[in-house]
């Protein structure tokens, strides 16, 4: 990796995006009873997190030194400027409802159906809203980041003409487009707003990213400068990346964030696109999620890959007809695998504090019958045939039994 040191360090950026929030660390330090044992153990398995929690707990347990001096200090000039920018932003009305050009904070992600996706971010993503699709009502936009030192040739820095904007907004990641659903009549929090002319410049740069002939300057990590883009607009960007470049890792981290932001709409679009002729697995998954919602009132999260314990899903950009993972609830995941057109396999993974009894019934006959304790999985239940009457029965510690069909109506 290049020896150029950019600020903040990559590891700090990664932790701010995917690590535990300060509120979660506080709960761990205070041994909040609401946290499950599994969550706690997973968090503390990381040595840095364990140290953080230990130090936090120690601080809370010990008395702190008394304050004996009440002198104030001079606030550094650069901080004064940041505070000025912050206050100017807070005092500006950028509009309460979604509009093109707004820089907004994402506090929760919604599906186009209006359901809240179970995705949690340590640091709230920031997005520049571009345009709303008139048919799907989905908003198209770009990820926005603060780490301007990592700017590449396709990162458009915010400029004085864009003021006021929150200091957390530094540049628009043209290479990192997103699609999100914003419920009607739900206020958003805007941290700034680009003018229509500036939005045209952003779109021009986006068009150049997709279509341009790529006459580029030399790589110079951490360097930014003005340059022309399509249609006569001028933007401020960094330089192109090279192979041994810390900005590649930076982009990968933010692309993963963008992937998560995109997940609810992408999943919805994939389902909508296959609505007329869905694959068998897609149809079964849809049926199971609907059944669960009818029985429990919760919307499961579906992924093509395994879902992490701490609650964020790593989804791929393409829908899979080979496997689906359905997070029925926080501590119970159903995985379905299809290797051919006739048979399928399932597996359940339980991470709760109690237990769940699992029974798989194949044409009236129990082919799997076991009790899962914390952190256990069932063996793969194989040989289930698609066109037979299969069912999954789950009995929880509170004696509630749910019966879920494993065949498509």
């Amino acid at each position, binding site marked *: 990796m290049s020896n150029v040191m950019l600020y903040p360090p990559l590891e*700090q950026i990664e932790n701010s995006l995917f690590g535990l929030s300060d509120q979660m660390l506080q709960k761990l330090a205070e041994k909040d009873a609401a946290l499950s044992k599994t969550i706690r153990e997973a968090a503390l398995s990381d040595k840095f997190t364990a140290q953080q929690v230990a*130090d936090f707990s120690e601080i809370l347990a010990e008395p702190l030194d008394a*304050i004996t001096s009440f002198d104030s200090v001079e*606030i*550094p000039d650069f901080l004064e*400027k940041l505070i000025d920018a912050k*206050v100017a932003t807070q005092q500006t009305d950028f509009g309460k409802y979604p509009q093109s050009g707004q820089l907004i904070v994402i506090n929760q992600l919604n599906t186009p159906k209006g359901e809240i996706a179970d995705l949690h971010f340590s640091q709230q993503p920031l997005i520049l809203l571009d345009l709303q699709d008139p048919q799907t009502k989905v908003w198209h936009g770009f990820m926005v980041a603060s780490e301007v030192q990592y700017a590449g040739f396709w990162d458009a820095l915010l400029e004085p003409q864009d003021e006021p904007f929150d200091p957390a907004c530094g540049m628009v990641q043209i290479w990192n487009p997103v699609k999100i659903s914003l419920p009607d009549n739900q206020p958003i929090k805007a941290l700034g707003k680009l003018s229509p002319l500036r939005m045209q410049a952003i779109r021009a740069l986006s068009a150049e990213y997709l279509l341009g002939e790529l006459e580029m300057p030399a790589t110079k990590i951490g360097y930014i400068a003005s340059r022309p883009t399509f249609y006569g607009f001028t933007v401020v960007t960094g330089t192109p990346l090279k192979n041994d470049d810390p900005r590649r890792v930076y982009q*990968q981290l933010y692309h993963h964030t963008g992937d998560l932001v995109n997940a609810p709409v992408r999943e919805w679009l994939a389902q909508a696109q296959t609505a007329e002729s869905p694959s068998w697995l897609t149809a079964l998954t849809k049926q199971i999620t609907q059944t669960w919602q009818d029985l429990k009132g919760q919307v499961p999260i579906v992924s093509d890959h395994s879902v992490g314990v701490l609650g964020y899903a790593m989804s791929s950009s393409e829908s899979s007809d080979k496997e689906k993972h359905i997070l029925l609830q926080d501590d119970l995941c159903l995985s379905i695998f299809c290797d051919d057109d006739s048979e399928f396999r399932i597996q359940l993974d339980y991470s709760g504090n109690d237990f769940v009894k699992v029974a798989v019934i194949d044409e009236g006959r129990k082919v799997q019958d076991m009790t899962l304790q914390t952190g256990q999985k069932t063996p793969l239940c194989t040989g289930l045939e698609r066109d037979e009457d299969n069912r999954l029965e789950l009995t929880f510690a509170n004696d509630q039994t749910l019966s879920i069909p494993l065949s498509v109506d």
Partner: protein
Amino acid sequence: MTAMAINFSDERLNELWNSREALNKKEWGELYQIIYKFLNVSNNKIRLGIYGLEGEIDDYINDFYILKVMRNFNAQEREATTRGHLTGFFKCFLIDQQRKEKKYFVNQSFEGDDDDDVKPQHEESKHFDFSPDEISETLSQFGFSQEDLTAKTKQFFDGLEEWQQVVITLHHCPDSIDSLTLSQLPQRYLQSATYYKVQQLGIIHKTNKLPRDYKSTVIGKWIHFSLGIRIEQENIAIIAIVFRILCVVALSAQDI
């Protein structure tokens, strides 16, 4: 703000902490004073060496203030925040600075440079590579001698604001391996408050293309109006030479 005006108490910290979405300038300043005081009084419990960190604790407190305290957008979350909690948050922040040993594997590119058939030209434009004869010839076409233009450039450079001189001298002019990122500039947080002002100054990428509105920038205005060189694409060669001389002047000033 006088010392007596600041209430260094958990109650006041809690009140300001949970109102961050609506603080005015005075209150942000007050919050800074409280945070600075609380974290420094706890100083005998916060030794950077324990965390393998170097530098001054003030810098870390300022980092914490920018990256954590100012960056809070969820007005719904209300937590009881005491000096102990604040110190805990800060210690967690310091421990995060230790995560430096990770090896990353990059498996994707988002620059569009993976296609061998569409290789970006990473070489600098030949317009920025002149022989001495070419420089003299181009200058004389515009009625300049090198000495005369150098003197005018020095006068311009000396009249710039300090941060503008620093950006030109340490960031724009040196070669890639010698150039400092804006974080390494003497004003460590120059990038936080004035990073994007390079556009106003007129720092441009070294390609064949000039931004259309370039003569509205500080450097562009000087070239166009003071030197009398029209900001047009056909004048890219002389403009590049002017930039070259500007760098010579800037780097020479650094050596004094």
